[in-house]
């Protein structure tokens, strides 16, 4: 007991605060990473003026955004116009709350009983993530509609059509893992992936569900509206898509939401397919989360790599790919998994 508050409660509050700020820092790191990787791929330097190696660039970006004037187009719907970025950012942060990121720990003896490393440990964690990510679309649609601008509206409509189309494949790739693990809890799924085959191949679902993993990654890119599926903000056609009319901090919130969503998708992929905090070799107690961090950033690097490598699809190609290829592949993957689970008794 410290000042009459139990140590458990203090630790829980600290975890919540740490997760919240870690996400914001991740977003800042991602902005820097995106620019540097883009520079690498395009054979140029990327940011290098602000701070050593350009490390202060994200800070400069944020300062610039804060200094800018907040503009609102004539005829925009005042309430919904300002509610949209808030909704986007809130949904992005809320989804991360249920993601476990480390093994149970006592914080080197600070607590009597080990606790779970997650902002909130929920039994139906996967469903929570799915539910919140399906709410994320409202921020985008609202922004598009409330801006009273044709580019915003078209961007918002495209984005919602895309997110709805890819959500099905996204959910079905979850379902296959749920069947293998027999649990809806992310912690339960990660625990199922501990151990090794033949003593050296980690027991990850990536090796049992390679197709599911590919479907998840592809649908995840579409869900976060990243290239090559970045139609909602296709610059050549729509100026900037749904956030065309936003400036200053309300634009920053959309920006933040996009990067936090990327982090969430990568973290879910890590927990579902890459064994969460179980690595190829064990780390000392209390440091397992390093594996988690390494894997999340590996996937994030992959996302950025893809953005600067692949050109944008055409809109009809996107819909055709989503409905005619990705969804059937996800259904077949689910059926085969179900058959194996039932008849081979996994």
């Amino acid at each position: 007991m410290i000042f009459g508050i139990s140590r458990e409660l203090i630790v829980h509050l600290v975890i919540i605060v740490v997760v919240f700020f870690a996400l914001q820092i991740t977003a800042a790191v991602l902005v820097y990473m995106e620019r540097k990787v883009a520079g690498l791929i395009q054979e140029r330097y990327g940011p290098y003026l602000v701070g050593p190696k350009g490390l202060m660039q994200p800070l400069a970006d944020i300062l610039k955004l804060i200094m800018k004037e907040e503009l609102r187009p004539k005829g925009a719907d005042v309430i919904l116009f300002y509610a949209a970025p808030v909704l986007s950012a809130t949904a992005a942060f809320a989804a991360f709350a249920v993601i476990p990121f480390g093994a149970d720990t006592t914080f080197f003896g600070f607590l009597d009983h080990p606790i779970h490393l997650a902002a909130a440990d929920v039994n139906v964690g996967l469903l929570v993530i799915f539910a919140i990510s399906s709410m994320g679309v409202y921020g985008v649609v609202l922004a598009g509609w409330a801006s009273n601008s044709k580019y915003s509206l078209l961007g918002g409509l495209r984005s919602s059509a895309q997110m709805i189309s890819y959500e099905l494949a996204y959910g079905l790739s979850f379902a296959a893992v749920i069947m293998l693990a027999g649990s809806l809890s992310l912690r339960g799924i990660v625990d199922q992936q501990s151990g090794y085959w033949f003593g050296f191949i980690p027991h990850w679902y990536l090796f049992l569900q390679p197709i599911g993993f590919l479907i998840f990654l592809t649908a995840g890119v579409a869900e976060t509206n990243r290239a090559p599926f970045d139609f909602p903000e296709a610059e050549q056609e729509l100026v900037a898509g749904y956030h065309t009319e936003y400036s200053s901090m309300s634009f920053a919130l959309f920006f933040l939401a996009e990067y936090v969503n990327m982090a969430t998708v990568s973290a879910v992929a890590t927990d579902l397919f890459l064994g969460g905090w179980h690595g190829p070799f064990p780390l000392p107690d209390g440091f397992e989360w390093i594996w988690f961090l390494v894997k999340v950033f590996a996937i994030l690097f992959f996302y950025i790599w893809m953005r600067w490598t692949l050109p944008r699809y055409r809109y009809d190609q996107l819909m055709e790919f989503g409905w005619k290829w990705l969804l059937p592949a996800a259904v077949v993957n689910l059926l085969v998994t179900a058959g194996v689970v039932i008849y081979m008794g996994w």
Partner: protein
Amino acid sequence: MDAITFWILAAILVVSSVLVVGQRNPMYSVFLLIVSFAALAGLYIQLDASFAAMIQIIVYVGAIMVLFLFVVMLLNVPTDDAGGEPRRMFGAGPRRIGAVLSAVFAIELALALVRVVSTPLPSSDRGAPVATVYDIGVKLFRDYAFAFEATSVLILVAMVGAIVLARKEAR
């Protein structure tokens, strides 16, 4: 703590549901309906039915309301915001009948409320087994498999019917 959460959620639910009907702009109605669904999901969680709560959000907020939103946005329903006289949908006669009917409904509601207050609520037993996803799955796909499948066929028929009705003759 539980009681406070319940009253907050219930207040949000009731107020937003009433406001849904009162809006002149259909976009606001859609969003208020979403708020009320979210509050309902919160009440489900209080009843230890977290699975039902999540399904409520995924199905209603995530899927059905998006369709509502599309319809409202694409049909571009004229809003009453433009000013001038509010539109009168019915003539004087139907409005009188409506007044009588709503008075009868109000009395009925009042009577029902009195009865609800006078009967004591069944004691909540928190120790009761929680319905897990497994239980729901077994009930749905084993005990009520026929009803479940029949419902899905019914929904399919309704969908095909809507497409047939809405389709314009192309040839």
